[in-house]
């Protein structure tokens, strides 16, 4: 029997806080064999990232390893002095972080950063290190590595940067790679490529990988074994197929049930038939002028540069239905949403709400019909306002209430409808979790009694189980009030679960649209097919 690359035994990580001891990781034990990819899943706060940070010795103070042992190929490493630990990092244990946009130092070329890392660990001179850096970039799938090596991080796209990060992590051929949410910040099609690169590189080198992620789909596609963590403890360990198909523990069962799949046939209420669509979008186009300044044009002869963010998009949204708009970042879906609520004006084309053009300004009664829910519930609520004031604001702005007590009654009612305690209106947003904040955002959107709500990635900042709750709430509210939604999401499974009709956007163009089941089961456009194939989905596990 081969020796495991890494063994963790009864690891306990503690944070001494003002209010007492917080145990982030509580008695975790596992092994990873050479060439094996171990998936670690769990929701935020489960302690999965902390376990990775403990192994590589990068726990932020005041956190510390309180008990337990970590062995790297049989040698204990958790009690090494800082200097020796720092020479292990990069050399024997590599790490890939979540956000490729912030993992690289913006002021140095990627070549400088690679060469620096290589020369720190391997006895090579500058020219040899450069050669090796070029080879690594080529292996990680960067085209033209000879010229690209002298580029700065901001000259790469997100996916390309993550390849650079992987190349950096692999620079000194580490035996173990800890990948902490390596694809969570990326588009699905890029995500699939990165997973492939990571998998290939590890196979060819026989490195062990600890893949930390909240995305069960990614694990289903990549890992062979997985552990499920909750509140610092390991809930379940086993092969990926076993856990996804036959979860044993209650927590795992609930977690897996909460994950939407693109293969889900959804229960759907009947959309009431109405002769005229609620929202008509006609030949909507929006250009952004990104031309260089006057002097640049004069001296360098740079050309005017106009980006067509949205080109000639037309669709209708039926009253009481949910229209899903999917696409990758930069496809123009958020620009579309902003034009739909009148936050930006279209370059040409129009948006008709019950036949009235939004761009020309709406009458008061129509204006209160449209509301919006944003992606990040941490950023979209004013931190200095009480929840009651946040929710009451649309009512006050539109003068829907005459007195303070009336407003308070309405707010209490709204909070109850989004399943929050009416007492919450006295609290501030920071006292709530992400899911609760998104409920507050929904209550705010509902406060003007709208008919049409534009939801821009309403759940992508949330954990899966919370996401399921928020989506359920949205559906219940739709049934209750006959709401019409425009749901914008990069998460195809969420759209499949929620939408009645779907439009697929790519580079500003609506490539395909139709009823949700038709699009998902029988996609016509190449792009839609590619997108659907790229999604890491739990249904794909054998």
């Amino acid at each position, binding site marked *: 029997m081969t020796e495991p690359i890494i063994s963790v035994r009864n690891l306990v990580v503690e944070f001494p806080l003002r209010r007492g001891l917080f145990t982030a990781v509580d008695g975790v034990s596992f092994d990873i064999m050479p060439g094996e990819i171990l998936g670690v899943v769990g929701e935020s706060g489960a302690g999965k990232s902390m376990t990775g940070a403990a192994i590589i010795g990068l726990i932020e103070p005041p956190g510390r390893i309180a008990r337990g042992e970590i062995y790297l190929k049989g040698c204990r490493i958790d009690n090494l002095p800082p200097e020796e630990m*720092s020479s292990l990092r990069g050399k024997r244990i590599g*790490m890939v972080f979540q956000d490729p946009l912030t993992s690289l130092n*913006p002021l140095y070329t990627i070549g400088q950063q690679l060469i620096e890392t290589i020369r720190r660990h391997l006895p090579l001179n500058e020219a040899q290190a450069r050669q090796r850096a070029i080879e690594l970039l080529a292996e990680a799938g960067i085209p033209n590595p000879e010229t690209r090596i002298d580029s700065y991080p901001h000259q790469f796209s997100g996916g390309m940067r993550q390849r650079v990060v992987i190349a950096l992590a692999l620079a000194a051929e580490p035996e173990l790679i800890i990948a902490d949410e390596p694809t969570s910040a990326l588009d699905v099609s890029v995500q699939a490529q990165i997973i492939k690169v990571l998998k290939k590189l590890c196979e060819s080198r026989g490195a062990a990988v600890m893949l930390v992620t909240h995305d069960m789909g990614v694990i289903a596609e990549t890992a062979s074994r997985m552990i499920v963590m909750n509140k610092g403890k390991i809930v379940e360990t086993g092969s990926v197929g076993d856990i996804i198909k036959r979860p044993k523990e209650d927590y795992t069962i609930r977690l897996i049930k909460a994950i939407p799949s693109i293969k889900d046939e959804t229960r759907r209420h009947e959309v009431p038939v109405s002769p005229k669509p609620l929202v008509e979008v006609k030949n909507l186009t929006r250009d952004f002028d990104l031309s260089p300044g006057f*002097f*640049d044009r004069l001296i360098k002869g740079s050309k005017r540069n106009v980006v067509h963010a949205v080109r000639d998009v037309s669709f209708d949204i039926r009253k009481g239905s949910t229209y899903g708009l999917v696409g990758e970042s930069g496809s123009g879906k958020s620009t579309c949403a902003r034009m739909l609520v009148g936050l930006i004006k279209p370059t040409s084309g129009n948006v008709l709400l019950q036949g009235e053009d939004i761009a020309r300004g709406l009458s008061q009664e129509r204006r209160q019909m449209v509301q919006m829910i944003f992606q990040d519930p941490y950023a979209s609520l004013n931190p200095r306002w009480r929840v009651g004031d946040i929710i009451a604001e649309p009512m006050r702005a539109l003068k829907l209430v005459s007195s303070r007590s009336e407003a308070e009654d309405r707010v209490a009612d709204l909070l109850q409808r989004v399943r929050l305690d009416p007492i919450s209106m006295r609290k501030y947003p920071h006292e709530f979790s992400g899911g609760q904040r998104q409920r507050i955002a929904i209550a705010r959107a509902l406060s003007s009694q709208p008919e049409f709500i534009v939801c821009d990635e309403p759940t992508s900042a949330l954990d899966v189980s919370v996401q399921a709750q928020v989506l359920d709430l949205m559906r219940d509210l739709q049934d209750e009030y006959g709401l019409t939604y425009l749901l914008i999401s990069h998460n195809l499974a969420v759209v499949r679960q929620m939408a009645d009709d779907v439009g697929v956007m790519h580079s500003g163009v609506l490539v395909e649209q139709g009823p949700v089941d038709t699009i998902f089961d029988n996609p016509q456009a190449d792009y839609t097919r590619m997108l659907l194939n790229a999604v890491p989905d739990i249904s794909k596990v054998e």
Partner: protein
Amino acid sequence: MLAFILRRLAQSIVVMAVVALIAFMLFRYVGDPVASLLGQDSRLQDFEELRERLGLNDPFYVQFGRFIANAVQGEFGISYRLQQPVSELILSRLPATIELAFASAIIALVFGLSLGVFTALKPRSFAAGLIMTLSLVGVSLPTFLIGIGLIYVFAVELQWLPSFGRGDVVRIGSWDTGLLTSTGIRSLILPAITLSLFQLTLIMRLVRAEMLEVLRQDYIRFARARGLSNRAINFGHALKNTMVPVITITGLQLGSVIAFSIVTETVFQWPGVGSLFINSVQVVDVPVMAAYLMFIAFVFVVINLIVDILYFAVDPRLRIGSGRR
């Protein structure tokens, strides 16, 4: 790059034109220049003649145009008080101010940077706490108090250093320098420290805050995960990123060291541009005030231009991203 500098230059010209207008307004509306040139008992006819001779009866824009044309050639008229051309006056006082400003800028930069980095890297140490507390004194005590305090300790009680003046100066071309004589250098120490103290603490606190922020960034964590040495991380990766915002503030601060050394110069009887200005204000010597105003605007514009170019050199994102906003 060229386009960038040209754009900045164009903006600078606009700034200078606006300042010139304000300086010109000083001439027009702060007292009657003719009244200050002639005595109270001059005849009305003399007034009229002088007005005509000085061109004060011409339309506003003609006068302003003449003012600009003269200013561009370095002509700001003749000081009412000293009866010398203003440009000569300023030029003769300039070396003293510039030597003082640069000496204190160097003190502020060297100590500000190193103490800032130290307090950021060892935020919990006793020494860092002590430095931070003392720096509060530097920020909050007014300059004249520090100057007088230093004079009392080092000039009056200990008698180590002179309390006023520049000491002996050596003339090189048209530049009087105090840096070549021992009395000159000894005289420079106290005013330079006084002038630098505020900037020093400001730069230090800024560097510390920025560096602590940078050390929290993902790329620093990633640099640690790559196993780089602490030295490479702190001084290679963190410090360079710290410099981007620090450059702006520091540049502007150095501008104000040159421009507003007035208090220090007064306390130490330093024969620089600042004390010239103070003396001119007291007797409403408008040509000197106007020229001083233009001079300071010019200093700031030049420093801003240098800061912008430094920005370009440090941050590659600006080099390529100048077309995108």
